[in-house]
């Protein structure tokens, strides 16, 4: 069951095709990674999904219905990359205000804020002002205000920036928890190790176009290069196989790339015939980081301005 369906979305600005024909589908309860280099059009894409921008072309279906920015704001929780809070406003009041803007009643909002504050051990913050908080504390508060109204779709842009490992984990656990309860999460970041850890499904955007779409496992399979690590008791001295090339050595293991036309069993058989004991043997899948760099590399680091005739 898909929660969000984006079809042929386009948004052209005066000097750029910010989003150029992007489509994807998001399943309920999944954690979705939206990746891409700076200026790829991620923010514009997100702003269209949250109703801040109107797309030039294309359609957005939210929960099976056509997305209606005016009335669907309560279904979405958005934590932008450029985020902040009213510095001079009391924290409790502020959280309640933001929840009310999402359509909650005052009493409902107050009750929810209190629950979350207890959960994150923030009760003593209620009458403090945002300017009294550290950056990390502010991020925590920002997260609470994003998910407070129990949105079906949560969009987090770089949610861990400025958080220490302890608070990072706290938020991460909460993200898993929300996904388990049925919320769908879009997670936009440059930190590939986090994506690998958290996301089920990713798309990669570059220059306004989608260049990769799939589950994390499938994407890794797609980009694997038949690289294996073999562990020995002692590295054998002379090897001249036609099956593989040695591309690295470390301690008691070799990193090899199996040549085209051969399988891992051919390699293992070779060592058995040579009577060399193999202590370990595993495939080395490429990291998302490698895939990202491979796909994006070669294109200019920052987007050039182009004239748009649309």
């Amino acid at each position: 069951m898909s929660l969000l369906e984006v079809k042929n979305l386009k948004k052209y600005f005066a000097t750029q095709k910010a989003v150029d024909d992007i489509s994807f589908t998001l399943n309920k309860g999944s954690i979705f990674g939206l990746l891409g280099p700076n200026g790829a059009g991620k923010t514009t894409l997100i702003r269209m999904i949250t109703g801040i921008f109107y797309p030039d072309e294309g359609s957005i279906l939210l929960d099976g219905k056509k997305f209606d920015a005016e009335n669907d704001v309560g279904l979405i929780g958005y934590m932008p990359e450029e985020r902040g809070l009213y510095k001079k406003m009391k924290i409790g009041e502020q959280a309640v205000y933001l929840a009310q803007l999402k359509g909650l009643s005052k009493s409902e909002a107050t009750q929810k804020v209190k629950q979350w504050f207890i959960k994150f051990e923030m009760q003593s913050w209620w009458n403090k002002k945002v300017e009294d908080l550290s950056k990390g504390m502010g991020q925590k508060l920002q997260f609470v205000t994003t998910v407070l109204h129990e949105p079906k779709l949560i969009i987090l842009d770089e949610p861990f920036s400025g958080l220490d490992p302890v608070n990072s984990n706290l938020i991460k656990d909460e993200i898993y928890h929300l996904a388990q309860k049925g919320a769908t999460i879009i997670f936009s970041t440059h930190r590939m190790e986090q994506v690998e850890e958290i996301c089920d499904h990713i798309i990669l955007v570059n220059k306004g176009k989608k260049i990769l779409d799939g589950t994390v496992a499938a994407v890794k399979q797609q980009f694997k290069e038949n690289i294996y690590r073999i562990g020995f008791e002692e590295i054998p001295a002379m090897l001249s196989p036609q099956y593989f090339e040695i591309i690295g050595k470390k301690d008691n293991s070799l990193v090899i790339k199996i040549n085209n036309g051969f399988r891992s069993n051919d390699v293992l058989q070779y060592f058995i015939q040579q009577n060399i004991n193999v202590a370990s043997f595993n495939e080395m899948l490429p990291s998302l980081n490698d895939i990202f760099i491979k796909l994006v590399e070669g294109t200019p680091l920052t987007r050039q301005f182009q004239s748009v005739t649309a």
Partner: protein
Amino acid sequence: MKKIWLVIQREYLTRVKKRSFLLLTILVPLIIIGFYAAIIAISISGNSSSQKMAIVDEANLFNGKIDKSKSDLSDYTFIQNETETSFKEKYKDRGYSSFLYIPKFNIDTPAGLKIHSQSAISLSEKSKIEGLINKAIEEKRLITAQIDPAKYKAINSDISIDNAIDSEKGEKKAVAGVAYAVSFAAGILIYMILIIYGMMVMRGVMEEKMNRIAEVVVSSVKPFQLMLGKIIGIGGVGLTQFIIWLVLMFLLQIIVTALFPGLSHQVATMQASQQVGQQNMMQLVSEGIKSLPVGLMVFCFLFYFLGGYLIYASLFAAVGSAVSEDQQEAQQLTFPIMMPIILGFVIMTKAVNDPNSGLALFGSLFPLTSPVVMMGRIAYSPPAWQIILSMLLLILGFLFFTWLTAKIYRTGILMYGKKITWKEMVKWAFRKG
């Protein structure tokens, strides 16, 4: 609509609850009025304790008595058989605070009059005594010239000319001075409101942008709702401030009259002893106020306050949304907005002198200057068609500028780290969609 209401509430409450708001709204007028009250209190107490005065009248100017009806000099005693030098030693011991010495003098060249006192006497006291002596000398001169004082009074001329305005409703009395003062005050008031509250809106928008809250809020509220909510909320703050000031002024007036019941009497007697030309000033002013179209003025004030505020607040909001870094940038960007306000002010100062000139007419029709200029003309009862046209243009101007600025605002608040020029803002404003 519910969301705009939420935004209005927040904008209003966070400002009204601030300590600086209370300080500014309650303390400032209290300090100003307290200051005046102190001055009045001092001057009254100085008078009420106006200690006994002695008069050594060697010239026999007053013939030993002062006509009570002509003077309010309260406590005086004529001293006989003393000279200036002899009495100088004694007046303190006899319980007088001061004494007036009138030497023998030629009635045509009076000289040598002197007031001796322990401390400086007040200016009003001095002018009272001078008036008294002048009158006495005048009377003596009339007698030596063999003119009957009663006849002289009859010959003396003191006229003032009325200016009647002929309108369809009939004749009305106009008083140029009063219309001038009221017009000027109303124009300046509107001018100040536009700048002060416009700036407040701009700072509010800048705060939202610089604290990076704009995108968070805009994901729940339409940018236009956010802008309108802010403008209305701050307008409400302005109105609250005005109402508090009015109430404070009213209360203080009651308190002051309750504390110093002699005050109004004091003012009246001071008025009575003034020179002939100014004698019916009070009456003139009150008559002048009656001649003004008060109902129309109050209505216009509210209308132009609202219309002008809405236009300029939306312009200031647009500028605030374009500022990405600092105050200095804001100053540069506000300059083009300040121009029409200042222009309006300049035209207004001309219009109060010549309310029917072409410049005044233009200024009171053009929506960016009309709030200030029309307030400067309104006391002179401009023709109805001009007022109606000006108001229509103001409403159209309001619609046009909010439409324009909403587009700038929408783009501006989501732009970070880039210096935005007026050229770009104009481009955003006229971009379709």
